């Protein structure tokens, strides 16, 4: 038991130690580089631990009814830690303070706790730990005028979401007398006004955090006011954690018909709205925000599939989406110097900075779902299970949405490859960012290539139940 408490939660312990260490460094006023370096090192160690646990087929009930390490917990934590590692490598060159990494680590720790949770208390602690540092991250060292506005919106919305989830949980407790996530299943099965309310409240809370239409209002402002790295963090890891948390709650429970209809409508509207609104955006972060609304739509679309297949298709989707977003953001940072946000600075970038431009183009095409890039595979898995469950019409509507999506993704490619006008022949300065940034980008690309070549990865990983 004690060994399990240590070994089973080793990644969390590593992150805790990292937070403490970063605090110490902050007190000792150590060099910023050390913090970043430690972050990368700790996350690499955490990934290694998780991978070895996966290899051993380790599973354990750590605190009965509250903390449970199963295959899903291992894989999803590996996905989140991996994304964190790539993000860390990508931002090695930029001098972020220890505080920055401390906040990121706390948020990541919250994400891991969500994945471990088997009870509502740990789930709620995880969700709060995930969201609150995000608020601080957005204002930390941010000179943008609207930063406090965006972060305040984020804080408010996220508190509302937490309140909704908490209320829903208490209703579930009132109806079943148990705080286990599994009791949510029985609540769903029984029905009745109280249970319906619980279900709606919990789902709405998660949808708010995942910025699904019509709960999306905070996302564009929050994303655009944050720094690019923070935006990447919010759009990839936080969103991934929320969606995977939802998977944790629902796991492979069959949902009832009314819930499915509701989720289908919300997801299709989200896809259509997000993609349509993104077309008119002129800044990268806002575009990313609207596209993330659309992607949240695809993700919850997978929930309408009533089979166990949705867990693996969502894991794949979330992993691909998160890594692609990080790569895209980093490449955008490389193409458009540092904090520039206007899409105009991409014009003709291919001719001056071919490699990051090419990678950015591939990343956005992957987000658009052009085969054979991993983004296409991800969408395919979602749609495959949805169509197999008999929802052909919503699937076609979602396809229309993703077609609309290609318009603005293609717009980015179009800007990158646009022939430059001769007048702006000012020699562009060489790419910033040292080899460390590149190592992060190439790690991300390598992971994406792995996903592309082995799309059945999560299926196999989940299937090996020791």
């Amino acid at each position: 038991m004690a060994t399990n408490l240590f070994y089973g939660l080793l990644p969390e312990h590593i992150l805790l130690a990292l937070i403490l260490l970063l605090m110490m460094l902050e007190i000792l006023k150590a060099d910023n580089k050390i913090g970043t370096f430690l972050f990368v090192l700790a996350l690499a160690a955490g990934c290694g631990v998780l991978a070895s646990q996966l290899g051993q087929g380790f599973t354990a009930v750590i605190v009965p009814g509250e903390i449970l390490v199963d295959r899903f917990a291992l894989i999803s934590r590996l996905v989140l830690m991996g994304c964190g590692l790539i993000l860390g490598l990508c931002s090695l060159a930029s001098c972020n303070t220890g505080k920055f990494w401390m906040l990121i680590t706390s948020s990541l720790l919250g994400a891991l706790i969500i994945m471990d949770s088997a009870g509502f208390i740990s789930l709620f602690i995880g969700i709060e730990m995930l969201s609150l540092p995000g608020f601080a991250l957005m204002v930390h060292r941010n000179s943008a005028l609207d930063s406090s506005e965006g972060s305040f919106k984020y804080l408010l919305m996220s508190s509302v979401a937490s309140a909704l989830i908490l209320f829903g949980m208490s209703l579930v407790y009132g109806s079943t007398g148990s705080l286990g996530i599994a009791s949510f299943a029985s609540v769903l099965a029984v029905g009745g006004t109280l249970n319906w309310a619980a279900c709606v409240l919990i789902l709405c809370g998660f949808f708010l955090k995942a910025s699904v239409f019509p709960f999306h209002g905070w996302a564009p402002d929050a994303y655009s006011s944050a720094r690019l790295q923070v935006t990447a963090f919010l759009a990839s890891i936080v969103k991934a954690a929320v969606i995977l948390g939802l998977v944790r709650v629902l796991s492979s429970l069959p949902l009832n018909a009314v819930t499915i209809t509701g989720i289908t409508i919300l997801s299709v509207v989200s896809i259509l709205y997000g993609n349509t609104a993104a077309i008119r955006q002129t800044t990268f972060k806002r575009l990313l925000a609207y596209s993330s609304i659309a992607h949240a739509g695809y993700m919850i679309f997978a929930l309408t599939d009533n089979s166990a297949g949705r867990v693996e298709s969502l894991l794949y989707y979330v992993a691909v989406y998160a890594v692609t977003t990080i790569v895209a953001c980093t490449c955008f940072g490389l193409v458009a110097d540092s904090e520039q946000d206007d899409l105009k600075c991409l014009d003709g970038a291919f001719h001056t900075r071919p490699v990051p431009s090419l990678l950015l183009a591939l990343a956005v095409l992957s987000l658009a779902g052009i085969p054979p890039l991993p983004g296409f595979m991800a969408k395919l898995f979602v749609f495959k299970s949805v169509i197999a469950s008999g929802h052909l019409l919503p699937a076609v509507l979602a396809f229309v949405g993703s077609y609309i999506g290609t318009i603005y993704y293609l717009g980015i490619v179009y800007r990158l490859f646009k022939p430059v006008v001769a007048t702006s022949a000012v020699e562009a300065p060489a790419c910033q960012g040292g080899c460390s940034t590149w190592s992060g980008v190439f790690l991300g690309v390598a992971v994406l290539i792995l996903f592309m070549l082995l799309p059945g990865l999560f299926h196999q990983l989940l299937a090996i139940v020791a």
Partner: protein
Amino acid sequence: MFDSTTILLLLALPVAGSLLVSLVPGKDSIVSRMLSMFTMLMVLGLSVGIFRQYDGALDPRILDLNIPWISSLGFNFHLAVDGLNVYLLLLTAILFPVVLCCTWQTLPAKRNLYMAMLLLLETSLLGTFLSQNLMLFFAFWEVVLIPMFILILVFGGEKRSQAAMSFFLYTMVGSILLLAAVILLGVESLHQTGNWSFEFETLYRLHLAWGPQLFIFVAIMLACAIKSPLFPFHSWLPLAYYEAPAGATALMAGLLSKMGAFGLLKLAIPLCPEVSAAAAPYIMIMAVISILYGAVLALRQENFKKLVAYSSLSHMGYIVLGVFSFQEAAVHGALIQILSHGIAAAGLFLLLGMLEERLGDSYKQLNALSTYAPRLAVMLMLFILTSVALPLTSGFTAEFLILFGTFQQGLTIWLGNAGALTLAAVLLASTGMVLGAAYMLRFARVILYGTTKTGISVADLNLREALAFIPLLFLIIWIGVWPSPFMDKVQSTVLQMTTHATGIATPAIAAPLTTPGIGGANGH
């Protein structure tokens, strides 16, 4: 001698080539051109070898490459040569080196990006034609768009951005429903066989209800009609053909448009036999409208490039007409038309590109070319004659077989009191040939003959350019004079397809008095 490894090489060589080319340092490097040429010639060598080896009697397992990719979902990396794609394999392999050879000295050809994109385009086209797995087919079908988009966007004419965007977005519309149809087929396979499968072999054996079949048919038709293009889905065509660089236009007219026709043969008819049989008369009407509309528009064009673009629309109509007659001779004709039009359209666009490159904008007012540049003029005339389907050129074999076969079919239906729609369609389509002769010969008269003007000089074809056209001319004449070696290769496939399709169609047609004609196939 050639086996599945060769097929893998066909796809792997251009990919490797494009990677190598993009690593060649510096601009204006001849190394990248040589490297691309070498890769394309290797592919050509392998394809010619496969083409010679392939005939209907060959064991299909020899030229078959099947690598499981996601076995739980039935995605396989499955490529094979069969009767439907053997012509297209040859056409693709020939056109790429020809295009490169013709555009060797142009500005785009000196850029590594251009070379890399050409090679990627070659891989994706070969992949589309050879794939035997629906999901793989779809993936390649989409990938084709990206190199072409970049080719138009970076190297095109004045309105290139608009052309590139409209090309991509327009052709992408077709894919929305296509992907839904692809997944639906996989689901049907899951329900009927208990396993996910996207292998064509499995999908062909499914029995679909009318509803899903209709949905799948509409989806495939939409995708193919836009790609081909077929009236009324052609509006992206003039702009894209006009603005793209000469090499890309030649490839678009020669190969990309054939993807649509190929999709009809490979997907629409075998996957939804009942719906295809029922819809055939209406599709044929659409094809005839395409033929006539394209011809009339071509008649009114002052610009040569646009004229050839619209004539493409007209010629693609013949292919669709032949395919949907389900008649042996007509299907043979359609397959040959795929090859023949691919060669002729590519040749015409390449020659026009050369003229534009030599004369700039003033090539639009050019006449009396035969005086300035006799070799170029002869070459142009030969391609024009193929387009108007002069006997002894491949165009004649193709269009004659199509009209002959469709006419027989129309007559059978009419005699069977099942309506005269098909017959009327064929008769109208025949007038397309006359219109074709009218606009093509007008084009020839204007550009080749007429009064000479002073102060104009046009460099004639040099050795490199002349050499590039030799294989095309050779094929045109060969198919025109003696098509049976070609037709023998695909005979069994065509027979299989038509008997399958007519077997389905017969109950739909009220009273079949006579059996569908078998003549004509080997009659030449």
